[in-house]
């Protein structure tokens, strides 16, 4: 089959690899009909995530048709149309039983690597480095899905691929970020980063009853899309975010702040330049300027919700502000299986159509160009969807 393969920082290629096979009884093999490039894939492209190896197949947003089922899998049958969550969970451990699916104890074959860095392991992930299991990803024509009797969600034929594809990651991720804000009537939510997860968080905040959402970015087309979703927008290139947020919220600050940027934050602030210099010199791993702003801007007793990915050590976090203002922090990889079914119902009821973020549709063959376009924010690119079984897309 064809697959998108990581070779080195800024070097991904589409090449022929062997087809996946059933390796465990609960596995299934999916013929991938639609997949996508995630903002977090850019962290891999840019070399920010350790334990990548040349030859790794990327991709963790996928859906398709079940073509083979392991003998212990009694939930799926050949021909089922499914969306596959990016986290892999066993469904049986202490954490899965508490709905903390992304913290599954049993799905990471390289748990020892994660333990060395984080103390304890999180769940396995598709196509996201060896520290999270080294599972082959979904930017390919076929994929093996472990514990496929737990994760994949069957979707009705009446909905197009593009309407349900983002149940695989960014819609539940943005939704959990908003849910973590514990939104009350009249609340104002500020969202840093208007990439695909930020966009989903903005719309989810409204679904959950937010009165106002303020969206912060410096990319005009992303701010336009946020405004389409009902958000008031702030371009951080135009001046101090804190002052403007304070002014917009009657001098009190947003009730909750969402950092949908993560470890590669950029911007014109002094701390962002210092972070960039330090990261280039390997003195720090992550660049948390969006997080610093979110902590400073948040109202007293508010929530900082972090769907943006962090991997290592953060420097100069205003922890005093966090403590003195009594902030609550909520974060982590998305507990996918808790959200997929209810969010499918929201799509079916017409409350949201997540396909609004898609700006580009490409054949898998063109994925390397798609990565570069997404990374460089060329052609007003916000979200790239890939078709693995089409030579060209019309």
């Amino acid at each position, binding site marked *: 089959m064809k697959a998108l*393969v990581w070779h080195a920082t800024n070097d991904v290629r589409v090449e022929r690899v062997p087809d996946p096979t059933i*390796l465990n009884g*609960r596995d299934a093999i999916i013929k991938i009909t639609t997949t996508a490039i995630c903002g977090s894939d850019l962290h891999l492209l840019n070399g920010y995530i350790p334990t990548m*190896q040349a*030859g790794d197949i990327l991709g963790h947003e996928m859906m398709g048709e079940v073509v083979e089922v392991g003998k212990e899998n009694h939930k799926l049958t050949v021909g089922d149309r499914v969306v596959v969550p990016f986290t892999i969970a066993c469904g*049986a*451990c202490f954490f899965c039983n508490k709905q903390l699916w992304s913290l599954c104890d049993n*799905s990471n074959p390289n748990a020892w690597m994660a333990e060395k860095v984080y103390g304890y392991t999180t769940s396995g992930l598709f196509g996201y480095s*060896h520290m999270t299991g080294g599972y082959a990803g979904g930017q390919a024509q076929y994929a093996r899905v472990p*514990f496929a009797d737990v994760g994949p969600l069957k979707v009705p034929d009446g909905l197009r691929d593009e309407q349900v594809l983002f149940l695989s990651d960014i819609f539940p991720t943005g939704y959990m970020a908003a849910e973590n804000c514990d939104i009350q009537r009249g609340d104002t939510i500020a969202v840093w980063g208007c990439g695909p997860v930020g966009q989903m968080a903005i719309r989810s905040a409204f679904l959950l009853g937010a009165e106002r959402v303020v969206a912060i970015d410096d990319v005009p087309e992303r701010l336009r899309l946020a405004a389409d979703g009902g958000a008031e927008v702030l371009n951080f290139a135009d001046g101090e975010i804190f002052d403007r947020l304070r002014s917009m919220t009657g001098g009190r600050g947003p009730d909750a702040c969402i950092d949908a940027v993560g470890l590669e934050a950029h911007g014109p602030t002094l701390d962002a330049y210092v972070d960039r210099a330090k990261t280039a010199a390997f003195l720090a791993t992550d660049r948390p300027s969006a997080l610093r702003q979110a902590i400073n801007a948040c109202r007293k007793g508010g929530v900082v919700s972090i769907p943006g990915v962090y991997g290592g050590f953060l420097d100069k976090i205003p922890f005093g502000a966090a403590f003195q203002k009594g902030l609550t922090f909520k974060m982590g990889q998305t507990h996918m299986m808790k959200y997929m079914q209810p969010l499918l119902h929201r799509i079916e009821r017409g409350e949201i159509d997540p396909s609004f973020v898609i700006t580009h549709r490409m054949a898998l063959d063109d994925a390397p160009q798609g990565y570069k376009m997404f990374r460089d924010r060329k052609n007003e690119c916000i979200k790239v969807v890939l078709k693995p079984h089409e030579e060209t897309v019309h």
Partner: protein
Amino acid sequence: MTSTINLADVERWASALGGAALTAYGIKQLKDRSPAGAALTAAGGALMFRGATGHCPIYAAAGIDTANDREGTRVALSGSRGIAVDEVVTIGAPADRLYAFWRGLDQMPRFMEHLVSVQQIDERRSHWVARAPGGRTVEWDAEIINEIPAELIGWRTLDGADVVSAGSVRFKPATGNRGTEVRVRLQYDPPAGKVGATVAWLLGHEPSQTIREDLRRFKQLMETGEVATTAGQPRGKQSILNYD
């Protein structure tokens, strides 16, 4: 309170006196350039240590405590000789089920990576086959020397008189009905003979990590019915610089 003294008085004195005699005899043999001298001296030294400290690492690892016999299995593993491993994992299954799976022995290669097979010879003794470097296998016999259903299995390896490793696995209900804490203790003496060297090789440079991975696979098997793996999945062309 647990005590590092797990030998009864009589046994301590016997160990000390027997060890001293062996050591003296061994040193004499050494002077005579006899190859047996070194082994006798080493064995004698071990017995003297056992007598002097009241602590037998082999007994401790196997969960045997002759000093506090009423307590049966309460013992701390703190011997200074050899290498000691103490690893624990919590598994969401009842102790009796975990115990039964482990005590069956023949299923152990499913979660202990280096094992090829384990066969019962009789009620207490078993024959073990493991992978060794260069595609070879190594074999040894072991016996169960301590056993409490749903609680404890203790064993030691047998190779004539060359007993160099012992271990135990304990099953203890976790708090709040959260499954069972499974604790493995292992003690072995790397330089002491062929089996010791083999055990040392099997456990690698980080014996605790090796046992932790075995326990992790045991947990996966018990909780999910399978062991998570990517072995055999597709991947692209690799550079020779890759580490796996």
